[in-house]
């Protein structure tokens, strides 16, 4: 048996996975290097077995649950923020759209009014101006109801 053969075996022997055969024993007794390797392997085996492996603290499961709850809450907050952003975007869209419609109408109506004045059709111009006022009132109502819905949703979510 050679040193190479024995050195291949020392870790298995130290770990209890291989037996010390008479041939190995005879070699180790006469070879200081292999004897030292076997002693070292046994020392490492003992040290590995003695390594600390602390048990989880008693509060561990509760701490994990708390982190999961925090993570879930954080995800809900994210959804909440997205919802709020969507509401703001929708309101801006409504306002922008309304203003655009109202402005186009206003321009047309003003042009028509001017034309009417020029044409001395006063009554017709007054009628058009009345339509514009109605549009403004409708837009304001829409805006107020959208803001009211937002405020209501916020209150519900924060409860």
């Amino acid at each position, binding site marked *: 048996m050679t040193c190479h053969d024995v050195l291949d075996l020392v870790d298995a022997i130290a770990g209890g996975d291989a037996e010390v055969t008479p041939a190995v024993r005879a070699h180790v007794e006469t070879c200081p290097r292999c004897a030292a*390797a076997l002693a*070292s*392997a046994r020392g*490492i085996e003992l040290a590995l077995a003695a390594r600390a*492996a602390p048990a*989880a603290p008693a509060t561990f499961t509760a701490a994990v649950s708390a982190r999961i709850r925090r993570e879930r809450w954080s995800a809900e907050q994210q959804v909440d923020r997205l919802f709020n952003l969507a509401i703001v975007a929708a309101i801006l869209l409504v306002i922008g759209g309304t203003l655009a419609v109202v402005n186009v109408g206003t321009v047309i109506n003003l042009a028509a009014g001017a034309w009417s004045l020029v044409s001395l059709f006063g009554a017709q111009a007054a009628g058009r101006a009345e339509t514009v006022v109605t549009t403004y009132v409708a837009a304001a109502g829409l805006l107020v109801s959208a803001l009211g819905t937002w405020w209501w949703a916020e209150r519900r979510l924060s409860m």
Partner: protein
Amino acid sequence: MADFDERLLIERCRTGDDTAFGELVDRYKNLVYGLVYRMIPDRSRTDDLAQDVFLKVHRGLPYFRGEARLSTWIYRIVQNVCVQARSERRPEVPLETDARGQMRGDPGAQDGAFADLETRDRLEKAIQQLPDNYRLLIAAHYLQGVRYEDLADALDIPLGTVKTHLHRAKRRLREILEPEARPRPRIHQPDR
């Protein structure tokens, strides 16, 4: 844990049953905690890293197909979490070496001396130099009650491979701790 129990527990967790997930944590917490501590021997980080493992388990459960055992999957998560943690913070103090790259200390100290703290510290540092799969094996094998069969099962590798890898890991440890134990060219190995 019996496969049936395990499947049932997983199903309950999947339905969002927090109590079931608490049971799962209770069953595996000591294994995970011990493994994490042995992979990253820094007590100040063990709590957080072990909790990270269970957060990943919680997030991943809906996608866990049950092809492997739950413990196999948890071992993998432990390994990934520890590898990531190591890559984020490399050990600041390397293994003590002299100018020739050899370990300091009495070169003849090979047996009983392993009991002292300094040697344990050297051992920990040497373990940190092992490849990740060897480190996990070393960490898991010496946990109380973990048998070769459990490891083979959990890591989804043959029993023989577990033993071979463990022996190689320990040999590598010897070589790190005692450079003179490194293999020499065979021409210098006389027959005895």
